[in-house]
C-alpha cells in the first residue's frame, strides 16, 4: 500500500489527513455540530442551509435502515411526509402550538413505521424495497384523497409558527438565522441520540445482521424483530425531519409523500456515503446545492439526478465521505 501511495505522490495528504479524520470520527456529533454552526455563513442563503439541516436529518434517519441495518427502503417518503402532515395539520387546522405539533409529527411517523415496518420486514431482500414503495404510496393516495384534512393535491397550507417561546425568550423564526439555529439545536440533539443508538448493543446487533443474517440468527438474534425496531427508529428520525420541514416551509407539499422523495433521500445517502455518520449530511448538502445551481440553468433536473444516480452506482458507490475514509484507511 505505502509503496503504491508513494508512487502516486499521494502519501503527503493521506498521512496528514488520517489522524484528523480519526479525531473527527471519534467525536463525530461535536464535529458535525461545529461545522453546522458555522455553516450558514458559508451557504449561499439561509433557507438553503435550513433545508440542508432538515434533509440531512432525514437522510440520517434513512441511513439507519439502509447503511447500518442493510435494508433498502423505498418508502421513507411516507415517514417524512407523515411527520410533516402529523405536525402541520394540528398546527394549521387546530391551532396547536409548535411544541405539541412537533412531537405529534414524530409520533405519527412512528406509528406509521410500526405498521409499514411490520409488513415490510415480513419480506426479505428484494421484496423489501417494493413493499415499502407500495405501502408508502398507500399513504400518498390516502392523503391525496382526504382533501378536507390535508388539502389534497394542493398541499397543506397555514402551518404558521411565527415565533418560539423558550426559556423565557421570544424568538421570531421569521428571521432565517434564528430559525436556522433553533432547528440546529433540535437536529444536534437528534444526532446525539442517533450516535448513542449506533454505539449501543443494539447497534452491534444491526451490524451483525447486516454482515451475516443467518449467523446472527444462529447466535440467538431475532432478525425480524431487530429489523422492525430499526425501521421504527429510522421512521422516528425521518418523522422529526418532516415535522421541522412543515414548520420551516409553513406548508406541506403533497410531493413530500411521493416515492420520488424516497429516491431523493436515498440519493443523498448514497452521495454522501451510506453507513457513515457524516455521509447523509454531506450528501444532503451536495444534492441541494447542486439542485439549486442546476435548476437555474435548466428545468430538466430529473435528467441530472438520473445521470448522477447511474454514475454514482457504477463508479462511486461509497459516496464522498465513504470514499474519503476508505482512502485514508489504506
Amino acid at each position: 500500500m505505502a509503496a503504491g501511495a508513494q508512487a502516486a505522490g499521494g502519501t503527503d495528504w493521506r498521512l496528514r489527513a488520517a489522524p484528523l479524520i480519526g479525531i473527527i470520527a471519534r467525536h463525530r456529533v461535536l464535529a458535525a455540530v461545529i461545522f453546522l454552526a458555522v455553516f450558514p455563513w458559508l451557504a449561499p442563503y439561509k433557507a438553503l442551509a435550513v433545508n440542508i439541516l432538515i434533509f440531512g436529518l432525514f437522510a440520517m434517519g434513512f441511513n439507519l435502515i439502509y447503511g447500518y441495518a442493510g435494508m433498502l427502503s423505498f418508502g421513507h417518503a411516507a415517514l417524512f411526509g407523515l411527520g410533516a402532515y402529523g405536525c402541520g395539520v394540528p398546527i394549521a387546522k387546530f391551532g396547536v402550538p409548535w411544541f405539541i405539533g412537533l412531537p405529534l409529527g414524530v409520533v405519527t411517523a412512528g406509528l406509521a413505521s410500526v405498521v409499514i415496518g411490520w409488513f415490510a420486514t415480513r419480506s426479505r431482500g428484494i421484496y423489501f424495497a417494493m413493499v415499502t414503495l407500495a405501502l408508502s404510496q398507500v399513504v400518498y393516495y390516502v392523503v391525496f384523497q382526504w382533501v378536507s384534512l390535508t388539502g389534497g393535491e394542493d398541499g397543506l397550507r397555514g402551518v404558521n409558527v411565527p415565533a418560539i417561546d423558550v426559556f423565557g425568550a421570544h424568538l421570531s423564526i421569521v428571521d432565517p438565522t434564528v430559525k436556522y439555529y433553533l432547528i440546529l439545536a433540535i437536529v444536534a440533539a437528534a444526532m446525539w441520540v442517533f450516535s448513542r443508538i449506533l454505539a449501543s448493543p443494539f447497534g452491534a446487533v444491526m451490524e451483525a445482521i447486516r454482515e451475516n443474517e443467518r449467523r446472527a440468527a444462529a447466535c440467538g438474534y431475532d432478525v425480524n424483530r431487530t429489523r422492525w425496531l430499526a425501521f421504527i427508529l429510522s421512521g422516528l428520525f425521518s418523522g422529526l425531519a418532516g415535522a421541522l420541514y412543515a414548520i420551516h416551509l409553513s406548508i406541506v407539499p403533497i410531493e413530500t409523500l411521493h416515492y420520488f422523495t424516497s429516491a431523493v433521500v436515498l440519493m443523498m445517502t448514497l452521495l454522501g456515503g451510506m453507513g457513515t455518520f457524516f455521509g447523509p449530511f454531506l450528501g444532503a448538502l451536495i444534492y441541494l446545492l447542486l439542485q439549486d445551481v442546476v435548476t437555474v440553468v435548466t428545468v430538466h433536473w430529473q435528467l441530472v439526478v438520473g445521470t448522477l444516480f447511474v454514475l454514482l452506482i457504477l463508479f462511486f458507490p461509497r459516496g464522498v465521505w465513504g470514499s474519503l475514509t476508505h482512502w485514508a484507511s489504506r
Partner: protein
Amino acid sequence: MSAAPILEVEALAKRFGGFTALADVTARFFSGSLTSIIGPNGAGKSTFFNLISGSLAPSDGRIRFQSRDITAEPQHRFAHLGIAKSFQITNLFPQLSVLENVRVAAQAMKSRFDIWSKRENYRDLVTRAEELLATVGLAARRHDAVENLAHGDQRSLEIAVALACDPRLLLLDEPTAGMSPEEARAMMDLILRLNQERTVILVEHRMKLVMGISDRILVLHHGRLLAEGAPDDIRSHEEVRRVYLGQSV
C-alpha cells in the same frame, strides 16, 4: 456420562420438493457424550445437522431437547435453548474483527434490544470473548480482520463464535474441513477438551479421526440411519464396511 438423553429425534424426515434428504431417523444422544455422524457424500448428514440446529424445519418427526419438544422453535431460539452449531462453510461476520465476532455472539445472551447503553459497559462480554478466543488459540489475533485469517484460524473462530452462547449441546459440522493433518489433530484435541463440559455431536468425513474419540457413531446413508453404536461395533459392521469403505476413505 448421565443416563438421560439430552437430545432425542423421532422419525425425523426432510423433503425438498420431490427429493427426500432424510427419512425416518430416530436416535438419542446422551448428556456429556461425544457422538460422530458419518456417511458418504449426500447421506444427509448436513441436513440432519440443519434440522437439529434449527436452520431447517423438519417435514416429519419430532425433536426433543432436555425432554422439551423443540420441533417448531424458530432458528433464533436455539442459542437461548443451549444448542449451538459451527458451520461447515465458514460463516462469520466478515467486516467485524475477530474479537467482535465472538463478542457480538456472546451479547445475544445478554442484550438484544438495548438502544441506549454504551456497548463498552458490558465489559463481561469482552472478557468472555477474550476467554473464548484463548480457548481456541486465537487470542493473539483478536483485532485482526476476519478476511486476513488463515483457513484453519477461521475454522477455530467458527467454534469460538458457536461457544459464545455457552451451549449445553455443541454441534460441529466438519470442523476439520480443509485442514492439514496437524491442524486437524489440534482441532480434535480442542473438541475433546470442550467435550468435558458439554455434549458434542460431530459431523465428520475423516473416519480415522472420529473413531478414536467418539463414544458413539451414527452412520447415515441415503438419508437413513444405517447403523449406530460404539466405534468398534461400527468398524466391524458389515453394511457399513460395504457402503463406506467400498469408496476410498
